[in-house]
């Protein structure tokens, strides 16, 4: 976009600054020229006319925290200068990605959300280099990932694997829904048990109060205690959710000891084959029982039905030509081995 074009479209766009809102709701002023380097921001300014003031600040995607925005702007600030040589740019890039892995992941995600492809490629490559040469355990350690593949799956995981973006989206929604429901169930359970405890406690206190001196109304006591309860509940939630996720992950592993497949043949010999439908569709079977723990069965059925429906619709049709070719029978030639002692040259 040349400056003249910008002036013709909107006079306000000649302003050197644009207002951006990051994931923590804070708003900052950024040089427009630099920010426009990001396609998403560019789009927001030109197509929607946003960002010209604090009130219409451009809401950046939630992956963009202030720290990430700062890094990204540094990158844009360097690269938008036209005079730099390729060597300079390369050298800058190499230094730029020398940050800790966690920030590198965040940065990749943030750049991706802003559609800044060169930076996405740069950071993705850096992450790929970190992964290169490592074992699965090492990779899990570096990225703090759960060890949630079962022993059988590590031998050959079999699940809903299709390329159709609809199925992938559905799987993602499915996983998201699963997580949400689990979260809800957990909170419900927590609420229940807390409420029980509180009831018990209140009753005891009441008994004590009644016993000792009749001071305040039960209601008044309850509300102040309720406030404390809520605060404690929030804290507990934050603490227990991370613990509980890891516990859940352990549960999902069918109680098997997670070890690399190369250990003990006996272990592998005891496991059974996973089910795999002959018609090519894969539907969750009974060995997935652990994953369904705690999910509303009606919702589970609905999701299962949707997945099956998609799988059915995905069966592609053979071109007619192929059908003809293949139906005309197998024609295998038997081959006489040459026994003249000819030595193969290639390996």
């Amino acid at each position: 976009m040349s400056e003249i074009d910008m002036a013709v479209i909107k006079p306000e766009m000649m302003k050197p600054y644009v207002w951006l809102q990051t994931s923590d709701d804070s708003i900052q002023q950024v040089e427009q020229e630099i920010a426009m380097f990001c396609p998403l921001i560019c789009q927001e300014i030109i197509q929607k006319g946003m960002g010209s003031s604090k009130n219409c600040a451009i809401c950046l995607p939630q992956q963009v925290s202030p720290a990430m925005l700062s890094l990204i702007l540094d990158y844009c600030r360097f690269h938008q200068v036209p005079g730099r040589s390729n060597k300079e740019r390369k050298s800058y890039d190499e230094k730029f990605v020398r940050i800790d892995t966690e920030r590198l992941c965040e940065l990749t995600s943030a750049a991706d959300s802003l559609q800044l492809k060169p930076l996405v490629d740069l950071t993705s490559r850096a992450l790929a280099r970190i992964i290169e040469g490592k074992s699965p355990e090492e990779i899990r350690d570096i990225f703090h990932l759960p060890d949630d593949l079962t022993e059988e799956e590590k031998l050959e995981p079999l699940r809903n694997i299709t390329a159709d973006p609809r199925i992938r989206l559905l799987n993602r929604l499915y996983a998201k829904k699963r997580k949400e429901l689990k979260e809800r169930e957990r909170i419900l359970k927590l609420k229940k048990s807390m409420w029980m405890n509180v009831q018990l406690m209140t009753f005891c206190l009441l008994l004590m109060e009644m016993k000792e001196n009749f001071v305040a109304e039960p209601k008044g006591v309850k509300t102040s205690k309720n406030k404390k309860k809520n605060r404690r509940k929030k804290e507990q939630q934050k603490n227990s959710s991370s613990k509980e996720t890891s516990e859940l992950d352990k549960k999902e592993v069918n109680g098997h000891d997670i070890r690399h497949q190369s250990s003990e043949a006996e272990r592998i010999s005891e496991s059974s084959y996973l089910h795999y439908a002959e018609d090519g569709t894969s539907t969750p079977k009974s060995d997935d029982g652990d994953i369904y723990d705690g999910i509303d069965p009606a919702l589970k059925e609905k999701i299962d039905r949707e997945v099956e429906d998609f799988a059915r619709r995905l069966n592609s049709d053979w071109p007619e030509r192929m059908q003809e070719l293949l139906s005309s029978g197998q024609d295998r030639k038997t081959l006489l081995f040459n026994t003249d002692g000819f030595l193969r040259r290639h390996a």
Partner: protein
Amino acid sequence: MNKMEGQAPSPLPDQVLENVLETVLHFLSSRRDRNAASLVCKSWYRAEALTRSELFIGNCYAVSPRRATARFPRVRSLTIKGKPRFADFDLMPLNWGAHFTPWAQALAQSYPSLRRLHLKRMSLTDRDLTLLSLSFPHFQDLLLTCCEAFTTTGLAAIAANCRLLRVLDLAECVVEVADEEVDWISSFPETQEETHLESLVFDCVECPVNFQALERLVARSPSLRKLRLNRYVSMSQLHRLMHRAPQLTHLGTGSFSASELDPEPDYASAFAASKSLVCLSGFREIWPDYLPAIYPACANLTSLNFSYADINAHQLKSVIRHCHKLQTFWVLDSISDEGLQAVAETCKDLRELRVFPVNTREEIEGPVSEVGFEAISRGCRKLQSILFFCQRMTNAAVVAMSNNCPDLVVFRLCIIGQYRPDPETLEPMDEGFGAIVMNCKKLTRLAVSGLLTDRAFGYIGTYGKLIRTLSVAFAGDTDLGLKYVLEGCPNLQKLEIRDSPFGDGALRSGLHHFYNMRFLWMSSCKLTRQACQEVARRLPHLVLEVINSEEGKADDIEILYMYRSLDRPRDDAPKVVTILH
């Protein structure tokens, strides 16, 4: 962005990565890294499966076509290997398997964007080739190595239908001639003004080609860099082709002999004009008098394949003294130790050497020996890969090579004859091979021969920690030998043994490791059916094929071919194969 109250905590690191995981995985190309990534966790497994575009299948029976295509939906390049290497030595029955047809059908259905296919030791029919040619509109590269069961008809289909064909490489295939000789070269459409061809290798096709059509094809292929002709192309025809394609980098010269007695063109000028040539091969029916023609090209050569050229030391010397940049050299032992010494003197940059025998009889003197071998080790210090056939070798020479060439990755020494000791000391060859595994710390492939006791295997088990492929023939004393190897070599993937006294105890000692291996081949050893049955029972993902020369007699184990597999055993085996599971 307003946050709702009581929202979940900030996303866990794996969720952050999940958004961009596919982008990251696109930059992961080595299959070892991809396999590691796929075992990290469920979401990585899924993302990796969706982004794998190059698929390598080391054993066509390890996984069914349906499973492979179901897991990896976006493959553009596929490599499949079929029969084990010992099949080359007539040790396998007719029609054993490695049929490509079920794969062809699965690929046609699942990979419409397939661009590249490389098959090794597979059996594919004309129908398979025709199906391929019609199913993949973007198909570019077809490489067939040591394949069989197809004819020139199949080649014609590929030529005719694959409009974007870039590479057609047939290496050591057995191409049967169709009942009516099919002019497959003419099948390349003449209406296409320029082809996309970059590589055309057909030196193994044993039938004449239409030269005029070939010449026209070469003339309209401006991108052609590799051209390897079969022995039906004469010297003068070669000359014409070279003038059509001076941009060639790899040339297979065809017969390198003349059939007419006409005045001959200046062959040397053709080679001088091909300034980009780095690789020469062919010389299928060489007239050594024509060798001087290649002198102008020698200085630039990095690869020279004389493995079909029966030339002597003197003739070789005249060529090799110009080849200072040579890195790969394949030759017949007809050049004798003197020839090898000449190579050692000039080719200081040599990385790979293969010396093939003209005569595989044991009782002859043999033109190459430890003398030439040791000369090579002294002259070519950068050697990484050697395949050496000879009738005689000493421990001292092998030890010398282990010291002079520490970069060796592939060491294959084939002393022709059974149980041959060191002719100087009459000792077994244990110390020589022991030195190799001790000193060559990068060694991944080893082939042993000569008289060997369990001691040699003890060395291999102790020092050969990186070895992935091991070939053994007529070697060892007791089960201990094989036990040392199976217990000591954690990276062992391919083990081929013939005529060695290893039995059930040895087999059992590998139970902890068999799932890590691509295959185990044991023929004419001392295995019993019971032991094999036991292994099959204890390791359900292993397929044990017992192959006997006579149908029905499955008590004696003549050949055991054992491999891991994720699917049920195959159903396309001939009657002589009994599958235990």
